């Protein structure tokens, strides 16, 4: 590496935020006029930088390559002015790039302002809201007496129709699962509210609990653990599972 590449190597350490950041650095370093960028010099420096990046086997973001192409394009346009428009006032091929550079620079400065503001306002403290239970206020129910009566008549009629005409026996009501996962999870959290931990075995009464309930309980524990609302410990295989309140360390 010669001197200039060594110097560029140092630059890359600075970790540019993108091609615009790099370009701005090159322009400022050489004290170029941003409104009259010597495109040849800047392009050369830019390409050299990419070259070193490449030599150092650094990942070059695609945006840097796109910018390189843009610079080369501008360079070629400046070398070969469009013959057709020679009389008219021709648009400077650099114009768009300059606009982008200035726009970028502006937001870089604004980001500095925000940084300052954040430091300043990090010095202010707020209070946590008071822990007062929310009181629920309900709107009046939107149903008339007649509607209520109709609903009831509907149910009664429906039940009459269900009665088997011959046997006079109503079709049996389907037994629904009484233990829902959601309820079980809620129950565990409630049980833990004022305890450090509970044992899995204590969650069920041995006589009353059905297999289904225990399985649902186990799934509830797994689900809560997954949601990081509880911590679960088991000393050894097949020993009782201890369920810890997450708030307690």
């Amino acid at each position: 590496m010669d001197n200039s590449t060594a110097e560029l190597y140092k630059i890359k350490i600075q970790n540019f935020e993108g091609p615009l950041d790099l370009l701005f650095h090159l322009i400022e370093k050489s004290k170029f006029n941003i409104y009259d960028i010597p495109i040849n010099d800047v392009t050369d420096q830019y390409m050299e930088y990419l070259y070193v990046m490449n030599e150092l086997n650094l990942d070059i973001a695609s945006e840097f390559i796109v910018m390189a192409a843009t610079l080369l394009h501008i360079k070629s346009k400046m070398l070969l002015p469009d013959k057709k428009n020679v009389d008219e006032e021709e648009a400077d091929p650099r114009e768009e790039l300059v606009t982008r550079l200035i726009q970028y620079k502006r937001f870089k400065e604004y980001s500095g302002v925000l940084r300052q503001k954040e430091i300043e306002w990090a010095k202010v403290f707020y209070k946590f809201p008071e822990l007062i239970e929310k009181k629920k206020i309900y709107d009046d129910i939107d149903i008339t007496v007649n509607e209520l009566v109709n609903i009831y008549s509907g149910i009664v009629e429906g039940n009459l129709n269900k009665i088997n005409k011959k046997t006079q026996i109503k079709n049996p009501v389907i037994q629904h699962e009484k233990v829902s996962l959601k309820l079980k999870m809620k129950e565990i959290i409630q049980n833990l509210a004022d305890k450090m931990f509970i044992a899995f075995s204590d969650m069920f009464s041995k006589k009353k609990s059905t297999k289904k309930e225990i399985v649902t309980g186990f799934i509830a524990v797994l689900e809560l653990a997954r949601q990081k609302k509880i911590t679960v410990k088991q000393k050894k295989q097949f020993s009782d599972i201890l369920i810890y309140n997450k708030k307690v360390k």
Partner: protein
Amino acid sequence: MLEIKEIEALIEGLLFASGDVLSLDKIAEIVDLDTKTTKLILSNMIDNLQKSKRGTLIREINEGYQLCTRHEHYEYIERLFESRQKQGLSQAAFETLAIIAYNQPITRAKIEQIRGVNSDSSVTRLLERNLITYSGRLDTPGRPMLYATTDEFLRCFGFKNIKDLPFIEMSIQAEGEEQSEEEYENIKFDV
């Protein structure tokens, strides 16, 4: 060394940010004064806040201090913690309500039997909305809870009492034969 007014402001800031009870020792340590002086300053602050027209007071709690609101603002502040429930009642809840209204007092099991589906969540919703309430237990095995409508229910429908509920011309016995005689007596579909 800060001026006394500065120290008072600082202590107020400390109590505010802490939100909790702050011990006298901790306060004294932070403002860099001995506890006796700090206590004096705090006593003075308590008096001044009490006399002042200000929104907060300082309470002394067991060698510690805490900022709190004034009693007289209670009713206003309470309103901060109200949440208006936009959610109306579902068809299932209305059905359950109708069944309870016409059959009160009634057990959950009976409601389920009449509706043909589990009605636990509807019952819970109705309890939450204070349209129904517990009204004792049935004297059968398991001693199941009984539910009945509330005064809030009467108010919502503009009834004076439960006898205002319109009479339904329908005399039915919708239950199966497994139903014991005794239980039958508890089922009143017509009021």
